[in-house]
């Protein structure tokens, strides 16, 4: 099962990276970057299976396609940002990681604004009829 390979991959990379960090520090960073990318391959394939099932569920529900695709975008952005920020933090540059995270949050916020506006529109319509 992939669980084994991901676990062993992580441990092997960490052990080699600690060894290399003492000898030549930049190779420790390359190793952790490579391991992060490889584990991300497995995660993305797991995401694929989950999203397939999610798509089937939303087809039966009366949910508008736009909201589901926005939700998917948000998940994708959140995952990529978390991956890249984590790698930057590991390399020791938390300032860059903070920048990436702030950008990610603002992107997700800007994606969610249309949905909020749609909600406010419906509320506004109800209020108009009520008064």
């Amino acid at each position, binding site marked *: 099962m992939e669980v084994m*390979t991901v676990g*062993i*991959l992580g441990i*092997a*990379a960490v052990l*080699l990276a600690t*060894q*290399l960090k003492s*000898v*030549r520090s*930049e*190779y*420790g960073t*390359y*190793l952790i*970057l*490579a*391991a992060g*990318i*490889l584990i*991300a*391959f497995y995660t*993305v394939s797991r*995401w*694929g299976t989950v*999203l397939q099932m999610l798509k089937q569920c939303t087809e039966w529900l009366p949910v508008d396609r736009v909201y589901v*695709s926005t939700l*998917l*975008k948000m*998940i*994708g*952005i959140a*995952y*990529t940002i978390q991956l890249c920020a984590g790698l930057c933090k590991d390399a020791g540059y938390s300032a860059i990681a903070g920048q990436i995270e702030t950008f990610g949050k603002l992107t997700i916020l800007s994606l969610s604004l249309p949905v909020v506006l749609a909600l406010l529109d419906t509320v506004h319509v109800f209020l108009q009829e009520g008064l």
Partner: protein
Amino acid sequence: MTISLIFKIAAVGILVSVLCQILKHSGREEQAFLTSLAGLLLVLYWVVPYIYELFETIQNLFAL
């Protein structure tokens, strides 16, 4: 594909560090630097296609 990449990078790292030590002790500073640069380029040559493929997959998967 997966774990062999990790071992290849570790091997290049150890090789470069040994070479740099030898070159430093024999007085050739700039060649030591060139060796570490070559090691960096080799590792990047291996890792960059994976990075590109990963972000391509993410883009297709989440319709970003």
